[in-house]
């Protein structure tokens, strides 16, 4: 019966100390009763193969032991969908931004690094951040799971506090009004103070500034018009989402060009020129990151708006209640 002892010993390994002897004694008794009954029916002793088959039918030791253990989970079935939902946002909200910050910092610390070295370091950091992010989120949800039986926060909810049904195409009128006011305020200020070639009495600009002056002025005027339209018709259309994408891309590209254009006249104050140019040089990589984020957000909006939406029709909420 060595095979049965081995089977019982393997089950015992997974059982809690204070119950193992009792449980194993009962399983052992059940196995022997079953063997005894079969032997009595067959009129002979069971072979090793037959006993092996019988044990296999009972299930693997860890599976058998598991049935005696309390049901435990790091993240339970109620929190698990929320956990997955949060994990979906992890790449864009944590991993990619952290990797971008690392890459910029890496270039600052190792200015002589080649593109290949930078990419290799960034990829290495990407994995580290991914695992750290995953670990943090998992630990946070495990802590929530542990707290739930004590606080019952999942049971304490109020239907009135549920988020309002929101039309994803809706544009907030207050946001549009705010944007319109800001843009309208910027236009006269821009024309009055940033025409050049001298700014604020001490900064002299190169002729290239004209492109930026007019470029930003046109973008601001377009944004003001856009905000006015959204104020009157407060919802996204594919055309409007595309217009915002183009406008933001154009504005970002212009801004990046400004950072690289050497727009300050060095002959009228080399020290100030050097100081400002150093600041602009350090700003450039961060501006690239912000530009990419804006582009990603705008692109996501175009995709989202161009998809058909299944919204709860107002008629349902009003007619049926």
């Amino acid at each position, binding site marked *: 019966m060595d095979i049965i002892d081995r089977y019982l010993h393997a089950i015992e390994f997974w059982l809690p100390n204070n119950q193992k002897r009792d*449980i194993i*004694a*009962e*399983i052992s*008794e*059940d196995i*022997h*009763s*079953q063997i005894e009954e079969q032997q009595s029916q067959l009129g002979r002793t069971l072979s090793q193969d037959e006993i092996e088959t019988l044990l296999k039918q*009972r*299930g693997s030791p860890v*599976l*058998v032991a598991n*049935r*005696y253990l309390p049901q435990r989970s790091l993240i339970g079935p109620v929190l698990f969908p929320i956990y997955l939902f949060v994990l979906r946002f992890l790449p864009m909200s944590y991993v990619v931004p952290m990797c971008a910050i690392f890459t910029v910092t890496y270039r600052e610390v190792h200015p002589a690094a080649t593109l290949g070295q930078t990419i290799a370091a960034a990829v290495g950091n990407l994995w580290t951040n991914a695992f750290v992010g995953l670990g943090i989120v998992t630990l946070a949800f495990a802590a929530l799971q542990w707290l739930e039986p004590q606080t019952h926060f999942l049971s304490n909810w109020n239907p009135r506090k549920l988020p309002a049904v929101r039309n994803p195409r809706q544009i907030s009128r207050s946001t549009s009004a705010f944007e319109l006011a800001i843009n309208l305020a910027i236009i006269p200020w821009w024309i009055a103070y940033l025409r050049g070639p001298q700014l604020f009495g001490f900064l002299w600009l190169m002729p290239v500034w004209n492109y930026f002056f007019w470029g930003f002025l046109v973008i601001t005027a377009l944004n003001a018009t856009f905000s006015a339209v959204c104020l009157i018709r407060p919802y996204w259309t594919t055309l409007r989402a595309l217009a915002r994408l183009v406008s933001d891309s154009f504005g970002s590209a212009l801004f990046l060009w400004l950072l690289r254009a050497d727009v300050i006249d060095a002959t009228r104050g080399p020290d100030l020129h050097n100081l400002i140019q150093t600041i602009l040089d350090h700003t450039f990589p961060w501006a690239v990151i912000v530009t990419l984020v804006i582009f990603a957000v705008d692109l996501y909006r175009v995709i989202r708006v161009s998809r058909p939406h299944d919204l709860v029709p107002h008629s349902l909420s009003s007619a049926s209640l």
Partner: protein
Amino acid sequence: MAPATNNVDLFENLRLELRRGSLVLAVLAALREEQYGYALRKTLSEHSLEVDENTLYPLLRRLETQGLLASQWREESKRDRRFYRLSPEGKQILKQLLAEWRAIDSSLTAIAKE
């Protein structure tokens, strides 16, 4: 072929689900008379309620922890066996559960007739 197989699987899952709920009742009812685990399995099996040992023994322990069963190890046929029987509290619960069962049965019978 696939839908037929799916239907068989679906029926089997639903059948197991239905029987799982009734298992506690069957075990409590069968233990009005003292029995050891394997004998209980045989009793249930004779009444067409096949229960696998990995379900039955953990259930017996749970019911005992809940105070519905009492058990003791005793030697019988030259082997130590754990005998279970219904506790006084278990008798009370069984009575209530049987009443509930009959009510469900009667409701289902009425609904199925409609």
